[in-house]
């Protein structure tokens, strides 16, 4: 059974349909990547799964339960967390407060404190900056914070919307290393990426979305073999 199952989802901004009937599945324990050009509907899809946007039609089930149309906090409680595009940390709150906000629904204070320690072990820069306002962090540090904040809710499925956007190459490598680590720790990951080269190194399954429709679904091997996709997303340098 799939962990996340999206069926014929239509999401619109006013009259404009950004998703025109999207269906896809994410297997438990997998790393799945969503590729697509600018304006294809990637962010819209992530926001719809997370409950920020309500689908006009279609169904979304997570671990067998219908979540389409539910409130975002309810979806977080069920085990889905989204690291949003552009990170959206709370700039005037400290790093520690950002992490506490991520654990907002959890009552188990002791376990939360342990998880914060775990985050600090995984992201040592965050420990150093614990009392600093999040707005003073570098872009890479803010991305680490956004990931850590999402993990504080102990998600079973982590959604990430362009986690490498605007970051230096070294930081991008760091992000992908973390994605692989999280996966090893048992978190399923569904992420949006424009950097197909990096995504090929970690993802086990790919979807391509174009103009609000899924136009490709397959393994990294199939992706690399597809002539059209290779030209558009991997450049000719691969050949």
């Amino acid at each position, binding site marked *: 059974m799939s962990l996340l199952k999206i069926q014929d989802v239509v999401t619109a901004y006013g009259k404009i349909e950004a998703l025109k009937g999207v269906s896809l599945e994410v297997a438990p324990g997998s790393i799945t990547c969503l590729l697509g050009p600018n304006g294809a509907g990637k962010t819209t899809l992530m926001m719809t799964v997370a409950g920020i946007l309500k689908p006009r039609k279609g169904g979304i089930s997570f671990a067998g339960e219908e979540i389409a149309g539910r409130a975002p906090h309810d979806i977080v409680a069920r085990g889905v967390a989204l690291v949003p595009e552009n990170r959206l940390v*709370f700039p005037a709150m400290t790093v520690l407060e950002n992490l506490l906000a991520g654990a907002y629904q959890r009552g188990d204070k002791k376990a939360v404190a342990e998880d914060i320690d775990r985050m600090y072990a995984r992201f040592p820069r965050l420990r150093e900056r614990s009392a600093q306002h999040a707005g003073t962090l570098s872009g890479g540090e803010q991305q680490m914070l956004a990931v850590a904040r*999402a993990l504080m809710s102990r998600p079973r499925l982590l959604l990430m919307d362009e986690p490498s956007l605007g970051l230096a190459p070294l930081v991008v490598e760091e992000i992908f290393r973390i994605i692989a680590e999280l996966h090893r720790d048992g978190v399923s990951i569904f992420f949006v990426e424009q950097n197909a080269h990096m995504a090929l190194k970690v993802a086990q399954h790919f979807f391509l979305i174009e103009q609000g429709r899924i136009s490709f679904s397959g393994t990294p091997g199939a992706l690399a073999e597809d002539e059209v996709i290779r030209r558009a997303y991997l450049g000719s340098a691969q050949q």
Partner: protein
Amino acid sequence: MLADLIQNTLDGLSIGAAYALLALGFTLIFGVLRRANLSYGAAIMFGCYCATWTHLNFGAGLLLLAAITVAGTVLAGAYVERLCFAPHRGGSMIAAMVASFALWMQFEELVTLVMPTHLYAFPALYEGAPLAFGPYTLRVDALVMFGAAIAACALLWGTLYRTRFGLAVRAVTEQPAAASLAGINLPWVYVRVFALASAIGGVAGYLVVASHGQITPMLGMWSTLKGLLAMMLGGLGSLPGAVVGGLALGLLEAHSQWFLGPQLRDLIAYLLLFVLLAARVPWMHTRSAS
């Protein structure tokens, strides 16, 4: 001359403390909902009239009257939230503002229907002589007003910076989408912020009415204007700014009244606001964007 200056400063600070509370309530709602609640003052007036009515019909102690004022204001605030703000969440700014203006009229009509006389006496906070320090006098009720305002600020600070609810309020204020992605229930926060802001407004209203010893339906308009003015002077959307703006407004009024007479007192504040807006001083635009 110097004695007058000091006396005016004391008077200005004490009324400024009430303005600061009014501005804090406004700012909380504005910060979280990004909308101005025009019926804020009317809700306060409603709360104060609840207390006046209780006093007239049953008589009641000061503390009980204060509690009734706060409870009445919170009730009215909840009504406003349900009717004006909950239905327009994420929707039109104008719709919520116009709706809240309509409720202002509703509160005024209701109050004048039940209590048709224009002016009612309200039990004073303190009726003895003012405290004298050499040439200066300090009205005890002004002192109470100042103390209560400081206590309310401290309580608000504690709530915002030391509690789980406060963490949620700050998160929603800074980044609503990220707050809901973090698992914070936004409607839940909105309702409670409204109640909290109304309670603060109720405290301010009670202090003002009790120190004047009387109440008229104009209290609604008065509270909204003073609160808005102080909030804008302090830089839209900043809580410390609201306190500073309130105190500054009180001082400005007290001093300009002495220099220019009571007729020009209100004009000066509007003039200052106009000048600050026209000059686009940086602190008045910091939080209004994004």
